[in-house]
């Protein structure tokens, strides 16, 4: 059996039913442990004071905001190449979750920016890129909502997602060219030297895991909703024809 079998709507509904509660539970446990650990049991940073605690929300949300878009891109490509309906619906299901992550990253960033940089908002490359990403998400969702025929909508949004990805990357570098930033470089990398200190690093990892599981759980749940909504529409159309 190939992995594509899992993308058959019926099979998808079958295997996600037992998986979904576990994913949610895992997400909940990771988030609670990570955030409580981060909030109550980590020391303040010697320069940033207690604001360093915002990192446990800001970094995972920012990470997932980008990963959600990448997931949508992959799902769109799968839809275009193999025409699995579940794939298209998963891309649609992921977009609002991505928007939420982008908003969290922007809000926590603004709140963090006020005491650290003395301003809520600066036209810094990273901040600006996220704002642009937010606009891309809005356009993508609006296009889904505007088209009635589900297959046409899936096709058009896939094309938009692919073209949008190219332009999102272009904007990222264009923005770098346009302004020098306040934002620090990446706080996470495989190169251990550049990472944040271990005390902050472990709870942060737990939080990131929590956000990842939450994203997966939400996407699975929303995809299930979309599959059902689609089936319902098909049934209603059949009733009307009869």
């Amino acid at each position, binding site marked *: 059996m190939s992995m594509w079998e899992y993308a058959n709507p019926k099979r998808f509904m079958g295997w996600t039913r037992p998986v979904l509660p576990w994913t949610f539970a895992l997400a909940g446990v990771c988030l609670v442990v990570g955030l409580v650990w981060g909030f109550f049991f980590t020391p303040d940073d010697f320069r940033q004071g207690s604001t360093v605690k915002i990192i446990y929300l800001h970094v995972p949300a920012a990470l997932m905001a980008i990963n959600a878009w990448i997931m949508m891109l992959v799902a769109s490509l799968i839809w275009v190449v193999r025409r699995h309906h579940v794939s298209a619906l998963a891309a649609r299901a992921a977009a609002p979750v991505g928007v939420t992550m982008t908003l969290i990253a922007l809000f926590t960033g603004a709140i963090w920016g006020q005491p650290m940089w003395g301003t809520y908002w600066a036209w810094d490359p990273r901040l600006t890129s996220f704002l642009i990403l937010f606009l891309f998400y809005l356009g993508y969702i609006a296009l889904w909502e505007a088209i009635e025929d589900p297959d046409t909508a899936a096709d058009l949004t896939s094309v938009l997602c692919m073209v*949008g990805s190219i332009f999102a990357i272009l904007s990222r570098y264009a923005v770098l060219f346009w302004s020098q930033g306040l934002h620090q470089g990446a706080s996470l990398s495989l190169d251990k030297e550049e990472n944040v200190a271990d005390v902050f690093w472990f709870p942060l990892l737990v939080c990131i895991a929590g956000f990842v599981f939450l994203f997966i759980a939400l996407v699975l749940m929303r995809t299930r909703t979309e599959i059902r909504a689609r089936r319902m529409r098909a049934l209603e159309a059949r009733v009307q024809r009869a």
Partner: protein
Amino acid sequence: MIALLRRDLKLAVRAGGGFGLGLAFFLIVVVLVPFGVGPETELLSRIAPGILWVASLLAALLSLDRIFALDYEDGSLALLATSPLPLEGVGLIKALAHWITTGLPLTIAAPALGFLLSLAPEAYAYLLLSLLIGTPALSMIGTFGAALTVGLRRGGLLLSLLVLPLYVPTLIFGAEAVRRGADGLDPTGALLLLGGITAGTFALLPFATAATLRINLR
């Protein structure tokens, strides 16, 4: 291909909207800005490059929804799809026609409006050059957006929401080139990157446009 270009241009001129409206809109936006920010010459000349670029971007946006809408309604788009001319070519021609009716007049009119905003004298050449290089990209990206929304009844607003984020890189490099020109810096880098974006959009987006048109005509 040339026949199609001629036809589109003729239609745009006859409808009267093409040239006139976009230019008038451009003029009005530029005139409104000093009312909004105050008449200080120094401030205006500092923000002039950005205003001229944003205004031309909005003016280009204004006529986008008509690129395919009429042809879609009267069925000539379906006819074009079955003609020997590939849809990629149709997209390219449509973008070109849009550029000739909006981008080119905007480029020519922009220096005149630069006086209104007391743009630095060194910047005029770069303003002309950057608009000349950059506005084709605006037309091509817009044609893609118009193809995406062609089947929708009220696509106009959605079209702006889809297209404006795609305009970001063009706007950044275009306005940056003029700003550097005004500050007496070397704008070659920005102009080259702007040219790169235009070349890239013309190389890739006709295919995306044709793909979306095929989906919409299905």
